[in-house]
Structure formats: structure tokens, C-alpha cells
């Protein structure tokens, strides 16, 4: 009986690994590397990559600049409705991307909630790169926020209190104690958020549309190239696989590297010293 169980476990593992690895390997096996590089030189592929990189980086900068203080505040304050706020900030995680796109249209579209006011200011967001940035921000920010929140929550409040009795005001406490100690978690959340943003499709195509050279990101370009220029699609796909793999690796390594320099929790006296 136990032998059979072990076999079943092994088979399940093999099946899972095969299932997950096969599509990825298949991409690389279908296009010879030489062709891959050549296809990437093509104008549309290059445009798509540039747009993807530009919008992802801008979106990511916002996510870090706004998400970090937000997570810090929520980590250190308890107030009525706190868990509701946290759930709200995590909501995009469970929202289907197309619904996210609809939501963004409903808020910032021409006939959206803020559409009128924005229009008066001369700001038309749908079909622009701004829309791409917003879509990426919306779907990727919860990935960062969640990590950042738990990273800040893991910092012992006694350390923050100690810093204040040592003359550090709230900003210096954040900069010199909370931030360095939360860094591994922030780094991991950041790479995941960036990867998610890079691959964003559903909300982008709804909110920003798809126009080569303006709003067509790499994932949108892949979708566009599927029927007529399959090789370009493959090349872009392969590149995104490589980028995602690199990001995943970074997400794993960054915490390990920073943790060796600074443990993120306060010490409890080891029992040997009691």
C-alpha cells in the first residue's frame, strides 16, 4: 500500500513538472535561436519591447513610490476598517484582468466617473500610453503591496520605539530602521510585481487598445502576430519567458542575499544564554 502511494506521488510530480515545463520548452524548440534574434530585429517586435519596457518601468516607479509609504502606514497603524482597506488594496489580485480593464474604463474613460473632469483638463486617457501605465499599475500593485505590508509588519515595533527614544523622528525611523529591515521583502515583492506588469494583457487591451508603435506592448504584439507572423510571436514569447525566468530567479535570490546582511526580525535571546 505504501509503495503504491509513493508511486502515485512520484507520478503526480512527473506529470506536474512535464505539464508546466512542456509549453515553455516547446516555444524554444520551435524556433531556431538564429531566427529568434532576427525576428526581434523586426520593427514591430522592437517597438513592442520598447513600449513594454517603458510603460512597465514607469508603472513600477509609481508602484514603489506610492506603495511603500502606504504599506508602512498600514503596517504600523490600527484603525477601524483597517482590514477592509487592506482587502481593497489586494482586490486587483483576484479580479479578472478584463474586469480590471472595464473598471478602469468606467473610472477614467470618456463617459467614466472622472472622464468629464479629465476631459475639461484636456486629459484623455484611453488609447494612450498613460492608459497602459495605469493598467499595469492597477494589476501589479497588489503584488508589491502585499509583500511590503508583511515585510513592514515583521519589523519589531520595539525597534521603532527604540529609534525614537534615541532621537529619530518618524521619517528617520522609517529610513534608518524600518526600510533596511524590510528590504528583503520589498525586493521580492517588487520583482514579482514587475513581472506581472510586464505580462499584463487583458486590462491593457480593454483600456488602452492596441496600436503598434503606441500602445501595443509585447503581450499584445504576441496576440496580434499569432495568426500571420507566428515566428515573431514565438520570438517575443521566448524573450518574455527569458525575462520572466530572470525576474523569478532575482525574486528568489535577492532576499537570500540581503538576509545574510541584515536579519529582518529582532533577536530573541538564544536559549544557550538563558
Amino acid at each position, binding site marked *: 500500500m505504501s509503495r503504491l502511494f509513493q508511486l502515485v506521488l512520484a507520478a503526480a510530480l512527473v506529470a506536474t513538472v512535464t505539464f508546466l515545463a512542456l509549453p515553455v520548452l516547446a516555444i524554444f524548440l520551435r524556433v531556431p535561436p538564429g531566427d529568434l534574434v532576427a525576428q526581434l530585429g523586426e520593427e514591430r517586435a522592437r517597438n513592442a519591447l520598447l513600449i513594454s519596457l517603458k510603460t512597465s518601468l514607469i508603472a513600477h516607479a509609481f508602484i514603489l513610490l506610492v506603495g511603500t509609504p502606504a504599506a508602512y502606514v498600514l503596517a504600523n497603524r490600527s484603525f477601524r476598517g483597517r482590514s477592509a482597506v487592506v482587502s481593497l488594496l489586494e482586490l486587483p489580485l483576484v479580479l479578472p484582468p478584463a474586469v480590471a480593464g472595464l473598471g478602469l474604463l468606467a473610472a477614467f474613460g470618456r463617459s467614466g466617473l472622472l472622464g468629464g473632469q479629465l476631459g475639461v483638463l484636456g486629459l484623455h486617457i484611453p488609447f494612450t500610453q498613460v492608459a497602459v501605465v495605469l493598467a499595469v499599475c492597477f494589476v501589479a500593485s497588489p503584488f508589491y503591496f502585499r509583500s511590503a505590508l508583511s515585510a513592514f509588519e515583521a519589523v519589531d515595533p520595539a525597534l521603532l*520605539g527604540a529609534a525614537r527614544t*534615541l532621537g529619530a523622528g518618524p521619517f528617520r525611523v522609517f529610513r534608518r530602521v524600518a526600510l533596511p529591515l524590510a528590504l528583503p521583502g520589498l525586493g521580492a515583492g517588487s520583482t514579482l510585481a514587475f513581472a506581472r506588469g510586464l505580462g499584463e494583457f487583458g486590462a491593457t487591451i480593454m483600456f488602452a487598445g492596441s496600436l503598434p508603435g503606441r500602445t501595443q506592448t509585447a503581450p499584445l504584439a504576441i496576440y496580434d502576430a499569432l495568426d500571420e507572423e507566428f515566428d515573431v510571436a514565438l520570438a517575443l514569447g521566448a524573450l518574455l519567458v527569458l525575462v520572466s525566468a530572470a525576474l523569478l530567479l532575482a525574486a528568489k535570490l535577492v532576499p537570500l542575499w540581503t538576509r545574510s546582511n541584515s536579519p529582518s526580525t*529582532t533577536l530573541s535571546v538564544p536559549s544557550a544564554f538563558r
Partner: protein
Amino acid sequence: MDTLELSLDHALRSFRLSVALELGRETLALVGPSGAGKSSVLRAIAGLLRPDRGRVALGAEAWFDSATGMHLPPERRSVGLVFQEYALFPHLDVRGNVAFGGRARVEELLERFRISHLAGVRPADLSGGERQRVALARALARDPAVLLLDEPLSALDAHTRGVVRGELAELLAELGLPTLIVTHDFEDAAALADRVGVIVEGRILQVGAAAELLAAPADAFVASFTGANLLHGIARPGTGGLTEVVLDTGGSAFSTDQAEGKVGLAVYPWEVSLARTAPVDSAVNHLRGEVRSLVALGNRVRVSVGPLTAEITATSAERLVLAEGELVVASFKATATRLVPLGS
């Protein structure tokens, strides 16, 4: 050096904290069971806690005054706070920790606390005693006007504790700062402080020199907290002007204190002597009982006899050949007893 004045009234989870203290150029220890509100007092002085009502002032400088709505943030108060588990910054080395409040006195402090050789070491690699010294050095880096110590010895093992206690007492004497120590151990308080305040459930029951608390405990809690045996009974006038206390556990005991009704009879373990048979001496109280346990404490032994704990020298314990289960007589004088009110 200014006097620290403190009066506060604050609702904690299960009771109200209501204390008033004055701290001059001395060391005052607040002792009490865990949860009595001791740490909250420290946090209020440091500014990490904002009391519902009250006033905290150092001399003429008000740090907190609920009447005027003034609440100076912690970073603007001249306090040095040593946390219970030291709260050393794990991402900085010893020098980084000590220098956090200010670089001016770092070298001097590292020297004084004999941690210069550890300057580049991370807290995780320090021993308990070393961590405590770093925490103290760090707290003193800003030249604080008031020193606050939260359970300074609890994180140490029994052996280190004895050594550190002595060193700490010397240090406090040298510094001459108004110091408030919080601890649950009366012996530590007695060793380190000039005055001791007993705090229970948010209220201070008694403040005075350790010897005073021992000699004249204000109530049963103070008595048992300071280490006395507390025997419950009913008091009534006895012969020779003494009070006879009929003990709940059986038998009677006599005291020179006057009281009537339900009382606690307090007698300190070191006032209790043991013998195989009742000695014929001036001690009036003799209680027969079985030895329940023997605990060695260096050159002393704590012997538990019936409802009493006696503390005798190890040599005497050997001489008497004491062992568990043996019948002995515990004696103490009527003059060595205190009668304290029971209840609350």
C-alpha cells in the same frame, strides 16, 4: 539635576493605571507582577504612550500635560530607555547601534562598557551580558536626563544575572542620574534601587526603601511580594500583650503586632530557624511539620516545612541531616512577625 514629576491616569486593558511619582537624583524601582502596568509607566515617561490624563515634567520642562494638550514626541525628550529584550538594531553592528543616537560619545561609551573590542560585531553574535552593555551604552549616547530600564536583568541566565546586577548597581551609582527601573523581582529591586515602589493592578501600594518594605509591609501583597511567608489566620488578643493568630493551617502563632480578625502573619524565611526538636529559647513560635522540599542557593538552602519556607545556611542543613519527609520544628520569634490586613 532636575526632578522628574509624574502623575498619570490611563485605561489599560483590564484596569486603570493610576500612579504619581517623584524621581530625584536617585534610583527608584517599580516592582510588581507582570501586567501590573509597570512598562506602561516607562513608556509614558519616554513618550511612547500617551496617557488619558496626567502630567510628566522634568523640572520646569513639561513633556506631557493633558490639561494643555501638550505631548512632546519621544525624540524630543531627554530619556534613555533600555528595553526588556534590548531591542538592538539587528542590521547594525555594535558601533552602529551605540552611535545611532549621536556620534559624539561613542568611543568613550564603548570604552566605559568594555565593548570596544566588539565594535564591529552584530547583535546576533553577542552574549546576553554583552547585549545588555550595548543597550546601556546606546541609551546613554544622547546624555539623557533620565534613565529608564525595563526588566534589565530578566533576559539573563541565573549566573550572568548575579554578576551583571553588581555591575549595574555600580554603574548607576557612578552615573548619578534619576533612574527608574521596572522589575518583577524584589531582590533585584532591593539590590539596585534607593527606593522601591510596589505596583499592583495599576496602583502603587507602597513606596519606600527596601528595608522599610521588609520591616513594615503595608499589606499582604507587599509582604508576600517582598518574599515573606504569609500565614492566614484569625487574630485575637493573647497572653502577655501578644496577639494570638489561630492559623488556618492549624495551630497558633504569636505576634507583637496588634490586630484583630482576619490577618496575614508575615515572617521572612531568614527569620525562621529549624531544629529536630523544639528548642528551649526565647522564640515563642514553634511549628512542627514535614520537610517538603530543599532548594540549594549557593551557600544557603531554602527549606519548605509545612506552610513555611525557611532559609538556613547550607552547613546547617548538612549538620541537621535534613531530607525530604523528615519531621522538623520551625521556630521564629514573635517580634519577627508582622500582621498585615488581608483582602483586595
